[in-house]
């Protein structure tokens, strides 16, 4: 059953059509990825779903309900949570405060404390550094904090915008391991990535976005083996060899 259904979504920024009517489904418990070049509309898709940019036409359904017109705050309380591009941790807040602010809409402090423990269990580094200002963390640690902060809202759908951007290959591997772990714990993941190779390997299903339109879809493996995807997004050198990342 699909948790999220996007139908004929159109978004314009100042006269330019960023999304020209895209439709896709995200099945419950799966990792779904959108891949595509810069400016294809990947980020816009996530921003439209989370209510950050206005939608021109189209409908978004979440768990059988129409959520097209809800504001960001309501969407977060429904369980639609986004890890923004470039991590965007609050540099002027401590690590612990960043986690607490992720649970901003939750009322029960004991439950919030339990979720903090849950996050610390998965990211021991955050526990070690809980008193530090988030701005002093390394890039990889900040990405973990951004994911941990999103988990604090107890997401049902976790949307991640370029989580591997600007991180060292080893850290990228950790991030993808975390994404898979979260999916196994039952959190549905909608992932957008320029690192198409790693994303497709992790994904149950995938869509290719080109200048505001979905041009291809399939399982991660299908797209990984699709010749036009390989030519456009995976690069020539990796054709036969197994890449280092995954």
């Amino acid at each position, binding site marked *: 059953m699909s948790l999220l259904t996007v139908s004929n979504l159109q978004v314009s920024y100042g006269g330019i059509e960023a999304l020209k009517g895209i439709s896709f489904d995200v099945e419950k418990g799966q990792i779904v990825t959108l891949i595509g070049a810069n400016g294809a509309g990947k980020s816009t898709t996530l921003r439209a779903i989370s209510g950050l940019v206005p939608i021109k036409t189209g409908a978004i359904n979440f768990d059988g309900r129409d959520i097209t017109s809800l504001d960001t*705050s309501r969407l977060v309380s429904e369980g639609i949570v986004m890890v923004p591009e470039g991590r965007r941790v609050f540099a002027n807040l401590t690590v612990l*405060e960043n986690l607490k602010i992720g649970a901003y809409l939750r009322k029960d402090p004991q439950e919030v404390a339990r979720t903090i423990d849950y996050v610390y269990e998965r990211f021991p580094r955050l526990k070690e550094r809980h008193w530090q200002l988030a701005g002093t963390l390394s890039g990889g640690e900040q990405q973990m904090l951004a994911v941990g902060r999103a988990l604090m809202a107890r997401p049902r759908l976790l949307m991640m915008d370029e989580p591997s951007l600007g991180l060292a290959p080893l850290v990228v591997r950790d991030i993808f391991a975390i994404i898979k772990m979260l999916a196994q714990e039952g959190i549905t993941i909608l992932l957008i990535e320029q690192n198409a190779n790693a994303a497709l390997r992790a994904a149950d299903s995938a869509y290719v976005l080109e200048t505001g339109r979905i041009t291809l879809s399939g399982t991660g493996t299908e797209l990984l083996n699709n010749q036009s995807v390989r030519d456009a997004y995976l690069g020539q050198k990796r054709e036969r060899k197994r890449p280092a990342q995954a």
Partner: protein
Amino acid sequence: MDFIQANLPYLLAGISVGGQYALISIGYTMVYGILRLINFAHGDIFTVAAFFAVYLSATMPLIVSLPLTVVLTVVLGFVVERVAYAPLREAPRMSIMISAIGVSYLLQNLMWYITGGLAKQYVTIPWISSSVTLWGTTTKMVTLVTPVLTIILVVVLVQLINHTKIGMAMRAVSKDFETAKLMGIKIDAVISITFVIGSFLAAVGSMLYFSNYTAVTPLAGAMPGLKAFVAAVFGGIGSIPGAVVGAFIIGISENLLKAVGLTAFSDAFTFALLIFVLVFKPTGLFGEATTDKV
């Protein structure tokens, strides 16, 4: 000893007026911290608060009129933000700045219209307005009350910002609007609270400030408002401790200049300080190195 005796009144007056500037400058600096807006209407809200006190006290006892003054001032600050600034959230920063200047003139002219341009006698608040003698110096009680009350309010405010959920939200919003939204924070509510706090402190500051004077005119708040703004810039705009320290330094310096006979230059000093700070240390005493929001 004679030296201290001669200068103590000036020092006390300086500390007191510094506290009053501090209460106004916090409103400037907090709004700047969140919206990156110099709220030009803030000094006028401070003046309107004085007229609220005058007109309300004409018809009701002080115990009712003064709290009501605070409430109305807070409502005014809230309404100004909702009507004149909130619709411009996505607009270029210059638009909201111009809107703030517009609100400032609107409030000034409304005050002219209602008062007919005549000075109104300010209310005499018992105890606060009474005289007190300290080490041979006679002054008004307000001179001693102001710094104490200012410090208490600042401590409470800093605790609120550093140790409560709403304070955490304010710090988050001041750093990054969009990510704060993604946390489920309602940006507009947080901004409103900021204006409410700023207006509350301006209302308290207004009562303390005008207790030193017999009358209020529609422009009576312009000069203290401007000086409080300079204090906020001097301290590093966006920083609350900076605004408070800046306000006390300016208040004390002005009055010490008067003590040495340079009364005519005391206002000029403040604005010379502004120019000096902008030229040599634009981020002020405690300001962040990065002044622009990404």
